């Protein structure tokens, strides 16, 4: 059953909707449950009657809400499906063959095709139909397998950059086998020979449905050079209404990055199949073009690649003698410059400067001898595909170059002196040119009768001479000779490049000859003869969607295919590197016309945009749940149970429960550590290292609290509450002083903690190590705490130590002390030793000792226990006996005060003793 775009899997369930009004009546009669409340004012309520008409019914909107929920459940269970498939099609069984054109023209609609394919495959999977896929661009025998298998391989299918070959249709028709199946053909909409053959073969085996996009397709044919502009031609299959398209010209910018260089608009006239326009670009830009593309058409047919044919040639001109000023017309290079300048880039300079720039052509005008290095470089360059053009002249004629042996850079041997004809001192008329032979590159050029040669250099007759002549005079003497060297060639004009020896440079023939030699003109496609036997290696190939990809390991192709063949699976559109140049193979050759395919009228042709089938049951049920939630809230609100405060509280509770515990814990720990550091940094805070022994830590904490109280009362140091410092996690730099009681079984800190501790000691922190054993074994290793201290302190950066000398600043920072008792009265307390050169100055009570605070103080007197007090200031641990014990405790406090003063003021008290001496000196 279908209502609009929605169909139902179990429409009979909808009958239950009729029961809704009954439910309405039932629900309406049931009032909400009462709530019990304590209320002293109930005495005043006694006897008040409820108004009958108002309260015992559920309000209509709540009822409506519940009805909606029930209706949503019923509809949801009835299995609504958006855009259900046509049942006649959906219920087909048996194998299905999917035929894909997958040509360049399919590339633009490929995403839509993929979606449709996916839904087709999903449907086939539900009906357990085996599916085969046949790609016409590269036909293989279709393999029928489970649709789900194809679905996983769907992303691997991609359109090709070429069109199916005509014989591909026949091949495909032969591959079909004898089985019957239904066919879905994804056509690209272009007419091709052989389509009908395949269609007949398919229709023999079962029904055929065509899927085809109705969007018009545009393609671009290769750009052609016309005068100094480029002619761009676009074509379309369906001559429709007038339409504007934009062609983008991409190329490299000076830094080599791909960039949009120009755009050109084109207009298809109404019912025209072709549009053309001229794109005029500066020569520099033209040389950098890499491809043209129709904007918005992402397929290979809308892309044409450019090759060397659009480039300007670089020509290096080198003359054998200096130009004479004012005699421009006599310059050997004048006519060459005039001929080449409009179409080529000219390079000037010495040969050694020019060759590294790798010009396409080097012209040597009357240059006879070359130095050995120059000759070797030039030979090497020519060998790699360079074109060396030489002109004769007086110097060449006078030199011994190529006289007895053929010089490597000369096509022929020369006879001495040359000859001159038609002059005042000679017999005969000036010679004319003979028509060009068929094997000559100049074949077909008209020879004007006014071109005469009056002087030339003569070639020695040689067995190879006949092959090398490409132009000769009417009497058969060679005028232009050519020799191939490796991939390059040497061409010698046997006359000068200026008008001294002939009128050739004055004629239009000269320019045409230069063009034919591919010196001045852009390169046309090489002809068949030239391509024969060459192998071209693909450098980059086009993907179906018009993107250049690296060719990878694709095999090279035979040169003749560029002329004879069309692109195919083994001859992909792209850029090919050949012997001396690069060729572009485009998807469409010039003068292509696209024709729309015409299918037989009885064949069903569908579009690509079938809306996907969507089951809505889940949504309806979820909606019902949501409505029921709202109903809960509404019911609570109606019966007065939904207090705003409680609601927010429960919402907060819910949010707390839902929030990830880990993140929460991490957050709080982070902020805790930060808070701790912040507190410690804003006050003077004494710290003790956590040893892991609870009672020891508590004693240390109490001891520092007692010391802090003492400091507070007696000095201007007013410390905050002491802090337990975790070496692993806390920032140490905010604590000026750390108390570290040693217990034999405390853990060794980690490497990171030692890094922090060393940093702390180097930057002015102080640690008081307390072995708490009264140093019974001396400052040595034999007590457990002492051994532990050694292990703990080994990685620490501790300077040399000595027992506190009598004149150490610790003895006088606040109180004058000589003993440092704690709970025990061990004598030796160790501090950083004085520098070895410290000596007592005459008249001074103290030596001038270290500048810094001693980084460690090591002892075993259990000071914390002596300092420890509880909250009310009562000592926690007994010290000594009677009055002597109290005195000892007092001295312990004084040591603590001195220690903290030392930490905070450094050697200030040391400096004070020097004041009289300083004043004395200043007075002088």
């Amino acid at each position: 059953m279908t209502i609009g775009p929605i169909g139902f899997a179990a429409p009979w369930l909808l009958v239950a909707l009729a029961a809704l009004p009954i439910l309405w009546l039932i629900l309406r009669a049931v009032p909400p449950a009462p709530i019990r409340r304590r209320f002293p004012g109930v005495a005043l309520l006694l006897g008040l009657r409820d108004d009958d008409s108002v309260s015992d019914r559920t309000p209509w909107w709540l009822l409506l809400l519940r009805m909606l929920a029930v209706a949503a459940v019923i509809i949801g269970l009835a299995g609504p499906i958006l855009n259900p498939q046509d049942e006649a099609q959906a219920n087909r069984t048996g194998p299905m063959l999917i035929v894909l054109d997958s040509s360049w023209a399919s590339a633009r609609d490929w995403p839509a095709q993929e979606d449709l394919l996916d839904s087709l495959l999903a449907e086939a999977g539900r009906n357990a139909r085996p599916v085969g896929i046949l790609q016409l661009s590269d036909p293989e025998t279709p393999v029928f397998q489970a649709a789900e298998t194809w679905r996983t391989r769907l992303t691997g299918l991609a359109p090709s950059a070429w069109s199916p070959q005509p014989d591909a249709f026949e091949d495909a028709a032969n591959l079909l086998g004898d089985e019957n199946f239904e066919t879905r053909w994804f056509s690209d909409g272009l007419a091709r020979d052989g389509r009908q053959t395949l269609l007949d073969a398919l229709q023999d085996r079962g029904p055929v449905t065509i899927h085809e996009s109705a969007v018009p397709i545009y393609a671009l044919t290769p750009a052609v050079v016309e005068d100094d502009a480029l002619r761009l031609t676009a074509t379309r299959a369906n001559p429709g209404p007038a339409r504007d398209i934009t062609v983008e010209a991409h190329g490299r910018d000076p830094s080599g990055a791909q960039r949009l260089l120009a755009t050109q608009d084109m207009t298809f006239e109404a019912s025209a199949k072709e549009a053309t326009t001229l794109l005029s670009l500066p020569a520099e830009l033209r040389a950098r073009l890499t491809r043209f593309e129709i904007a918005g058409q992402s397929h290979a047919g809308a892309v044409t690649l450019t090759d060397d044919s659009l480039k300007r040639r670089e020509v290096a001109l080198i003359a054998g003698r200096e130009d004479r000023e004012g005699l421009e017309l006599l310059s050997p290079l004048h006519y060459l410059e005039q001929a080449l300048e409009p179409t080529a880039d000219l390079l000037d300079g010495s040969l050694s400067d020019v060759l590294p720039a790798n010009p396409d052509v080097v012209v040597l005008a009357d240059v006879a001898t070359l130095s050995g290095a120059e000759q070797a470089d030039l030979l090497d360059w020519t060998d790699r595909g360079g074109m060396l053009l030489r002109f004769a002249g007086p110097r060449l004629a006078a030199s011994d170059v190529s006289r007895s042996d053929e010089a490597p850079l000369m096509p022929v041997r020369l006879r001495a002196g040359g000859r001159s004809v038609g002059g005042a001192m000679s017999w005969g008329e000036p010679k004319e040119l003979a028509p060009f032979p068929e094997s000559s590159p100049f074949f077909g050029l008209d020879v004007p009768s006014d071109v005469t040669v009056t002087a030339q250099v003569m070639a020695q007759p040689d067995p190879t001479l006949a092959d090398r002549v490409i132009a000769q005079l009417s009497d058969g003497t060679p005028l232009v000779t050519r020799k191939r060297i490796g991939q390059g060639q040497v061409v010698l004009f046997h006359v000068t490049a200026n008008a001294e020896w002939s009128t050739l440079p004055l004629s239009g023939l000269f320019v045409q000859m230069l063009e034919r030699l591919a010196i001045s003109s852009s390169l046309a496609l090489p002809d068949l003869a030239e391509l024969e036997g060459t192998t071209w290696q693909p450098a980059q190939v086009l993907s179906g969607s018009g993107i250049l990809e690296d060719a990878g390991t694709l095999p090279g192709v035979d040169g003749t295919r560029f002329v004879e063949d069309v692109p195919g699976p083994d001859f992909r559109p792209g850029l090919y590197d050949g012997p001396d140049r690069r060729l572009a193979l485009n998807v469409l050759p010039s003068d292509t016309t696209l024709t729309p395919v015409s299918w037989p009228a009885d064949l069903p042709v569908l579009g690509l945009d079938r809306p996907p089938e969507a089951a809505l049951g889940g949504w309806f049920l979820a909606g019902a749940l949501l409505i029921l939630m709202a109903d809960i809230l509404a019911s609570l609100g109606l019966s007065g149970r939904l207090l705003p405060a409680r609601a927010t509280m429960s919402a907060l509770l819910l949010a707390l429960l839902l929030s990830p515990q880990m993140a929460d814990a991490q957050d709080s720990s982070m902020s805790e550590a930060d808070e701790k550091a912040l507190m410690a940094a804003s006050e003077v805070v004494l710290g003790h290292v956590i040893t892991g022994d609870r009672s020891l830590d508590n004693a240390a904490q109490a001891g520092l609290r007692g010391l802090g109280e003492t400091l507070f009362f007696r000095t201007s140091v007013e410390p905050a509450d002491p802090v337990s410092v975790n070496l692993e996690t806390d920032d140490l730099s905010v604590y000026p002083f750390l108390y570290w009681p040693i217990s034999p079984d405390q853990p060794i800190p980690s490497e990171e903690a030692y890094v922090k501790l060393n940093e702390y000691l180097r930057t002015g922190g102080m640690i008081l190590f307390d072995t708490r054993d009264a140093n019974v074994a001396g400052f040595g290793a034999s007590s457990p705490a002492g051994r532990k201290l050694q292990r703990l302190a080994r990685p620490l950066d501790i300077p040399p130590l000595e027992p506190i000398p009598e004149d150490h600043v610790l003895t006088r920072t606040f109180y004058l002390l000589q003993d440092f008792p704690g709970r025990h009265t061990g004598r030796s307390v160790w501090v950083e030793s004085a520098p070895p050169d410290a000596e007592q100055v005459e008249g001074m009570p103290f030596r001038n000792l270290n500048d810094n605070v001693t980084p460690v103080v090591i002892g075993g007197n259990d000071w914390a226990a002596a300092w420890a007090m509880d909250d009310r200031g009562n000592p926690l641990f007994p010290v000594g006996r009677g009055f002597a014990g109290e005195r000892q405790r007092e001295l312990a406090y004084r040591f603590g005060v001195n220690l903290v003063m030392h930490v905070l003021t450094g050697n200030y008290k040391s400096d004070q003793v020097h004041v009289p001496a300083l004043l004395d000196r200043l007075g002088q």
Partner: protein
Amino acid sequence: MTQIAPLRARSEAEAARFPALLARAEHLAGTVLLGEHGRRRAGMGDDFWQYRPVQAGDELRHIDWRRSARSDTQFLRQREWQIAQSVTLWVDGAASMRFASGDTLPQKADRARLLSLAIAILLNRAGERIGLSGADLPPRRGDAQIERLAMALGQDGPDDYGAPQTTGMLSHGRALFLSDFLGDLDPVREALTSAADRGVRGVLYQVLDPAEESFPYRGRTIFESVGGTMVHETLKASELRDRYLERLAARKDDLRHLCATTGWLYGTHHTSDSAQSALLWLYNAFDGGHGR
């Protein structure tokens, strides 16, 4: 012997509340400054009031000879009359007072006890004698009496609604009744009438919770008294609101009328308001501490 330990523990737990209540009451009372106020007429007392010529009937030993020696006539030295009034408190400890509509509000009983103890401290400082009606605590002066008051005030009554008691009330004394007066009105009427008959005047102070004034309830509800003896069910509580408020206003009117006829003062306090303003009102109601 077995009973002693739990009894002791219980009584200590109970007693632990009193210092707090006492401290709070002291604190509250400390906000009202006062001194020793005389009666502003001659009478028994320590302070000098006036000299007056000897009249017939005066005893010779009352003659102030030092003053008389400076003139021809004899003078008596009169002292200011500093007589203490007896103030009898009745604080409703019934179940209905143990009600607070919100977590931040104190219970009515708590507020009533605080106010009564604070005014007792103030009156004590003013030299009055304070006692509790009903309980075995006749009016006395002194700090010890304050502590006894604090002990006695902490006891909760068993009833759902309290009724004022006039036993132990001295004639021509003063009285303070603190309750929510939501229960039956007849005992109140009786108590007031009997008090007025004995020349006792005083203050009727009604302590109410804000919820009792606004009745913010909706929906189907079963209302129970705190003691659980009274139940009223309604299908739509919001419909009852207006009628409830009417009844409450009528109750207040009744109380006010009752007070007017018996010469008492009537006041209302809500637990959401500050205790200090209530104490000031009470203090003024007692004429600034003069039990006149």
